[in-house]
């Protein structure tokens, strides 16, 4: 399990060393980032009107780092990932504008054929539902060898033994024999292991996990997350974890983006955002989670109101109707993400006051 399962003469080997070297420095400043998303906007044109799911999102992912994207339903976190992969269902979805620079090249300008090469080879993705992501009528061996044939040109027995190695790598015992199994013969956790094997089969530089462990039981969730984190750090793969679970982000992510109503509201290192949150929504989220790391509390202090309808967002700051710090200014103008201290960014006019009160709450 600890050995790097790379076939000889593969460029991935060099890549891994490279990423290790970078990890020791400050990733965002020492080299151009692996992925740069710039002002991404994605909408859905439905019969009931247009819905802007992603409303101008910009962020970077450095080589080898783990970025978390956290938010509740409808915040745009999954559509952001699908837009990066150019997998937004069209119609009704349209990527309206922006740039997705992957190693400097704008994926939004790629042809469909070029994009196919990027998926799997450059960027791998794991979804929530392993049963619907795997083809039920193909053996798992066939499904793992397919990207090996398409992207790496491995054929026949070579592809098969590489597929078995990949199953070993994700912790599926008796791998040679299991290659002939069909998805329904596997448990939910094993299916997600197979998905990880497929996603990492061509050693992508970036792995996006979209609620990849949400449907699993907690003990299996822990197994899968540890596996994903260990493999990506061994291979030097950058990891984007998309989840609604603040605990998962706290454990695994170096940095995170907090999304609400299609925009990033706060970003920073995990320590910064969890310890000195400066956006009212972040604070509200943290106050809404039952926490095993603190004494049991009698009541929650939840965010009032409901998540707004994405087709009918409030004017100004979309969080304003649920915010206890909101002023008249929040109604007229949408706050933009601005630097707040060192490497933390917040989209809130009142961030100073908000951060001060959150520090009081902590002590």
């Amino acid at each position, binding site marked *: 399990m600890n050995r790097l399962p790379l076939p000889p003469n593969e460029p991935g080997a060099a890549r891994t060393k490279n990423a290790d070297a970078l990890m020791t420095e400050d990733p965002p400043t020492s080299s151009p980032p692996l992925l740069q998303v710039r002002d991404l906007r994605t909408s859905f044109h439905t019969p009931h009107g247009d819905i802007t799911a992603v409303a101008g999102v910009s962020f970077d992912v450095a080589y080898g780092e783990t970025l978390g994207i956290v938010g*509740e*339903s409808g915040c745009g976190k999954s559509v952001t990932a699908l837009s990066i992969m150019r997998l937004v269902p069209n119609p009704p979805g349209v990527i309206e504008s922006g740039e997705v620079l992957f190693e400097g090249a704008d994926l939004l300008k790629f042809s469909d054929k070029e994009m196919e090469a990027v998926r799997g080879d450059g960027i791998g993705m794991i979804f929530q539902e392993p049963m619907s992501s795997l083809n039920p009528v193909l053996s798992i061996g066939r499904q793992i060898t397919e990207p090996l044939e398409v992207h790496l040109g491995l054929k026949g027995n070579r592809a098969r033994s590489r597929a078995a190695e990949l199953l070993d790598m994700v912790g599926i015992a008796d791998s040679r024999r299991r290659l002939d199994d069909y998805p329904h013969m596997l*448990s939910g*956790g*094993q299916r997600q292991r197979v998905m990880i094997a497929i996603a990492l089969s061509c050693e992508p530089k970036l792995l996006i996990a979209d609620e990849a462990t949400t449907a699993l*039981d*907690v*003990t*299996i*969730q*822990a*197994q899968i997350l*540890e596996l994903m984190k260990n493999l990506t750090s061994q291979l030097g793969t950058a990891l984007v974890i998309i989840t*609604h*679970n*603040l*605990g*998962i*982000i*706290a*454990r695994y992510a170096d940095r995170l983006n907090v999304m609400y109503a299609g925009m990033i509201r706060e970003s920073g290192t*995990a*320590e910064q955002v*969890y*310890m000195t949150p400066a956006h009212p929504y972040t604070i*509200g*989220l*943290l*106050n*809404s*989670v*039952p*926490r*095993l*790391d603190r004494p*049991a*509390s*009698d*009541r*929650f*202090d*939840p*965010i*009032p109101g*409901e*998540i707004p309808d994405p087709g009918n967002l409030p004017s100004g700051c979309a969080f304003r109707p649920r915010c206890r710090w909101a002023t008249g200014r929040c109604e007229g103008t949408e706050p933009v993400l601005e630097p707040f201290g060192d490497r933390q960014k917040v989209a809130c006019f009142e961030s100073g006051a908000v951060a001060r009160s959150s520090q009081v709450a902590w002590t």
Partner: protein
Amino acid sequence: MTASTALQESWSKLGKFAPTLPEPLLSVRDLNVHFPIRRGFVIQREVARVRAVDGISFDIRPGETLGLVGESGSGKTTAAKAVIQLSKPRSGSIKFEGQELVGLSTSAMRSVRRKMGMVFQDPYGSLNPRMRAGDIVGEPLKVHGLATSRDDYRSQIASLLSIVGLAPAMAERYPNEFSGGQRQRLGVARAIAAKPSLLILDEAVSALDVSIQAQILNLLQDLQEQYDLAYLFIAHDLSVVRHIADRVAVMYMGRIVETANSADLYTRPLHPYTQALLSAIPTPNPIHERSRERIILKGDLPSPLAPPSGCRFHTRCPIATDVCSMTVPELRSLAPDQRAACLLAPGYAESAI
């Protein structure tokens, strides 16, 4: 034999720490729910059986919350369904307000169900999309004949809606016009409409976003205080359960492996499965998370058709020895108000059943 002497007897069977507390509202003893797997053409032979619930016992006292925790397939939902007799127990006893429910006729069960409300996980699937919100909430009033007139019916619905934090005018709307959190409020309003003494909450907040989940948990706590409701709170998330439950029972493959009051279970879990479950939950605290060692269980849940011999957890247990595959551990009192079924737990060998 009076109910209370029977109770004393069953408590004394349970352990040396017989509680001197009010009589339980719900008392479940040695409950078994099995699902036969049948094969064959004309004659359906039973080829196997899933012991979904395999001899569990628990009490819930008035106004108390018992958290029933476990992963998928642990039997927690089947146990809850057996309590309201939606799944038929193979054996065992379920006493509610002193009345035995196992073997009760359908019509007699209907009047008992008035005292038990149920809230389900899926706020989308559990509300009839063709009924107006008011009629959904008012249905128990109709079924049990609790409204004296049309006006009374309407005013009861209006007050139920405002109790759960919805505007009475929303009674005219259909479920699709409500958000997930509002639908779950509707589900709670329906569950309390007939003024029950026990609410069974089956993963009632699991599908909700955290900000909405916190609101519903607060609502449930308020209702409990106001109406002295007892809750059977079924969930897979131990951190949510700690927040709401007075006592917790942890299930694994049809059996209760540990039960204790909340404070003890979370600070000093005795069963390795409880320890692993607690350890698997990541907390929203990066400093704490990165410094802590986690217990990562090996393998998957075994097939319920062929459960492991002895302790059912031994195939995944980090501390299991040979004896664990041979002997079935009993739930023993290992500390005041804390029982665990682990042969290797401290004090197990010395303690009585």
